[in-house]
């Protein structure tokens, strides 16, 4: 990499970090919106780990988001009260958590969500990774839908009525700042972790699986193990993001908040496709762009927003599947460090024509 590029990259990272810290101070009314933006970036980054880098298009990654959310809630409440009593009271009984109880519960809840998501990813990885191609997508979609339906009938965690989470002890403004910062830190940690992961042998193995799984296996890569580990990495971050999101919203229920397969679950795929899959910046750009488009259509085209969204999906998938980063790589390959031998490109084009 040229020194000028290195300096530019450093400035870019510093700029994003500074912008991330000061953004809620500049726009205090939009703090929760901005926190949601970071979670969206996390969604697309973790989806790209399978869909982009590994070539396994999962439609059910949202499962870990909801699982983390519910596990965190159960731990937070279960540490100090009986969960069944709490959910049966349905918010009628006002339960107060002290400062210490709240923060201990939150910390332990997020940790439990992360650990349990890893466990779930290992279990479901064993079941799902024998499925290939569209069956994998359909199977993961089925798991996420089934989870939503089953949690909705499970009275212990509140069933379809949901759970309201412990109330943050303190000022609401400080609360939104607090959760904003947590989401911001989590997403930056995800980005750094994945960026490092893609430079290791592990990242190369994932790309080998994407390009040709049977050949990768023949080269001695233990594909099932790599696929499962990649899924646990996604599940780890998704579980924590679910735990934070549940606390940020303050009330969780299975269909719309915890396992929103047809909203967040499909958004994460769309954001990656929009930005360009298989790149590290593509998901980030796609998520930001998508979030802006979504908010604008939700505000100005109420009632038509889903139609706009569906049309966007269709157009994106049919005409622009390589995404913004993919398009940029085709246009200026030198900037991305790709070496293109022009002669072979031209002659191969002539041959095919």
């Amino acid at each position: 990499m040229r020194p000028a590029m290195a300096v530019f990259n450093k400035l870019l990272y510093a700029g994003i970090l500074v912008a991330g810290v000061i953004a809620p101070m500049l726009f205090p009314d939009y703090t929760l919106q901005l926190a949601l933006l970071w979670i969206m970036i996390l969604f697309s980054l973790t989806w790209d780990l399978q869909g982009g880098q590994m070539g396994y298009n999962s439609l059910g990654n949202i499962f870990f988001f909801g699982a983390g959310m519910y596990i965190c809630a159960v731990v937070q409440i279960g540490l100090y009260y009986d969960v069944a009593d709490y959910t049966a009271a349905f918010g009628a009984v006002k339960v107060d958590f002290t400062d210490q109880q709240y923060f201990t519960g939150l910390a332990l809840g997020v940790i439990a969500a992360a650990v349990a998501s890893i466990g779930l990813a290992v279990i479901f990885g064993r079941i799902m990774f024998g499925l290939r191609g569209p069956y994998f997508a359909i199977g993961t979609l089925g798991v996420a839908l089934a989870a939503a339906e089953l949690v909705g009938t499970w009275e212990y965690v509140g069933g379809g009525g949901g759970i309201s989470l412990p109330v943050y002890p303190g000022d609401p403004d400080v609360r939104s700042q607090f959760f904003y910062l947590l989401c911001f830190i989590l997403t930056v940690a995800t980005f750094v972790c994945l960026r490092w992961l893609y430079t290791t042998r592990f990242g190369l193995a994932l790309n080998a699986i994407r390009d040709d799984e049977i050949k990768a296996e023949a080269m001695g890569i233990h594909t099932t193990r790599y696929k499962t580990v990649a899924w646990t990495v996604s599940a780890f971050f998704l579980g924590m993001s679910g735990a934070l999101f549940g606390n940020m919203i303050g009330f969780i229920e299975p269909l719309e908040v915890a396992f929103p397969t047809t909203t967040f679950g499909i958004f994460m795929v769309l954001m990656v496709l929009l930005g360009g899959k298989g790149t590290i910046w593509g998901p980030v750009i796609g998520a930001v762009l998508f979030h802006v488009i979504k908010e604008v259509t939700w505000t100005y085209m109420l009632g038509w927003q889903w139609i706009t969204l569906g049309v966007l999906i269709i157009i994106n998938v049919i005409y622009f599947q390589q995404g913004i980063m993919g398009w940029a790589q085709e246009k200026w390959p030198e900037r991305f460090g790709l070496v293109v031998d022009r002669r072979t490109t031209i002659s191969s084009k002539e041959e095919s024509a």
Partner: protein
Amino acid sequence: MLDNLSLLVDAPVLNAQLLLDGLFIGATFALAAYGMALVWGVMNIKNLAQGDFVILGGYIAVSLSSVGLNPVLALPIAVVIMFAFGWITYKLIISRIIDRDLFTSLLATFGLAIVMAQAMNLIFGADVQTAESGMDTLLLGDFVTVNEIKIVSLVIAAVLATIVIVFMKRSRMGQAIRATAQDVRAARVMGIDTDRVYAFTFALNSAICGAAGVLISMIWVIQPYFGITHTIRSLVIVTAAGLGNLPGVIMAGFGLGFAEQYAGFVFGAEFQQATVVGLLVLILIVRQIQQARHRQVVQ
């Protein structure tokens, strides 16, 4: 839950009711699933908007019956409209994704499903609706009730299935469709316009879905967001039965109808949806175990 189970053992007549209801509803599932298997087998497209085609057909029947037409007579009109709708959808969307990878077809049809569900929500409203046929309810024995319209719908489903089978076997277009499914290049060499065959296949699927939707709107209820469940039902049936296995599709359709009725009765109505999705996951797991065993045998 156990109470409900012992009730079934104590009063066997309840089983008759559940089996009959499962039979009537299963016939419509089998119709829609046959359409999905057709498109899957011929064009290699997994249509995630299948259920929304079904619901759209149902809404056509509901709108026609609200202006005074009997839904049974509305069926041919719905079939014609849905055929045209399928042809247009093919020209606009499906023809552009047909030779792309599998995930593209899943996502594009998923986008189509979102658009259709929301458009129907805007046009027809989010309420649960049904097409009134104005027929009586029969009492079989002492406890089992059967609405006459359910019997009519079962007969219609059987007639439609027969027509489609005969069409696929005898007509020139049916032969062209089967030839294209076997080998696209060879079919093209033989002078078959495969693009037209694809368009016709997709339109035929859409028409079959429309007919299934009309039947469902007569004997059950429809709502704009029920589409995804119908899609998953079709997926369950096709995955369980395999492609190009018509008797299997019919049996799986009835089986799913029974399973849903029993699960709804034993566990409670809120488990009916969970049963469908749970069955899908279960079938995929079973298939995978079978394949793993097959692989070991090969090794």
